[in-house]
């Protein structure tokens, strides 16, 4: 059975179901991360003492990772634009780059975690470290999820371009919306944890 409105706009909502579905999911994600940001504020206001993020975390490493993630968002929009322009080779190049940049982000994050673990800076050590580990690890899981989905669309999933190009472009757009959301969360996480 054909799933309805994967490409065509649904007359009553004015968008296709793919886009409305991913936005509803992202709305729930905003609540998930919003709850944690709210927790951060409660912990910070309630603490008698709060460390400066830059005394505990490396700002150059955090800045590098921010640039990497923003770069991957740029390659993601270019991947989608390439599909719209019917340039499959360009799509493969940009989507591949998106996945590689996400892996670079994860590698750098793993190095940071390793550094923290080897100094005994576990989540149980301080309230700051507890919220740092919780928020960055949840964000890291989202990156891993993005790598899986984007990797699929770069590899085996891309065959759909040759049979249903519009449906495939919409899938990539939805994956892109998720990916930009993950980037957006980091745009707030970076100053909150590393700089303030």
């Amino acid at each position: 059975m054909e799933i309805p409105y994967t490409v065509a706009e649904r007359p009553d909502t004015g968008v296709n179901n793919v886009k409305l579905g991913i936005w509803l999911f992202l709305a729930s994600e905003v609540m998930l991360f919003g709850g944690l940001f709210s927790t951060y504020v409660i912990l910070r206001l309630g603490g008698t003492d709060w460390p400066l993020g830059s005394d505990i975390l490396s700002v150059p490493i955090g800045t590098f990772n921010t640039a990497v993630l923003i770069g991957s968002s740029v390659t993601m929009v270019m991947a989608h634009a390439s599909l719209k322009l019917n340039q499959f080779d360009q799509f493969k190049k940009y989507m591949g780059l998106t996945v590689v940049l996400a892996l670079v982000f994860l590698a750098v994050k793993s190095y940071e975690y390793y550094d923290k673990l080897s100094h005994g800076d576990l989540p149980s050590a301080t309230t700051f470290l507890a919220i740092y580990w919780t928020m960055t690890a949840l964000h890291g899981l989202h990156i891993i999820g993005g790598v899986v989905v984007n990797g699929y669309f770069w590899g085996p999933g891309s065959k759909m371009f040759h049979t249903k190009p519009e449906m495939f472009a919409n899938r990539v757009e939805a994956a892109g919306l998720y990916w930009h959301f993950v980037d957006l969360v980091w745009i707030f996480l970076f100053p909150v944890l590393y700089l303030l």
Partner: protein
Amino acid sequence: MSGSHDTEHHISAYKKVAGALAVLTVVTVLASYVEVGVALGIVLALIIASAKGSLVASVFMHLKDEKSLWLTGTLVLTVVFWFVLMLIPIMGRMDNIGTYKPLPNANAVPYVPH
């Protein structure tokens, strides 16, 4: 599906936003080294982060081109409940349940804490 002319227009916008995000990332880091006090420092960092977030949402996530009332409604509700979440810490500090507060009654028996 939008035409290739629209897509080329989008690509030029993506490039501009990419440049702006790079510049704003550097500005965030530099601003954190300026001695302005904790409160102003937080406000500055959040303003820059919000500017970056708005660029990502409006251009990369195509929100500036979305016309659907359903999408807009979803987003408006999300923003409203985001503010509710952010108000929780403030409400937590404002309530005084569990805190002794003397009533303006001259005949009241003086409260003696245990």
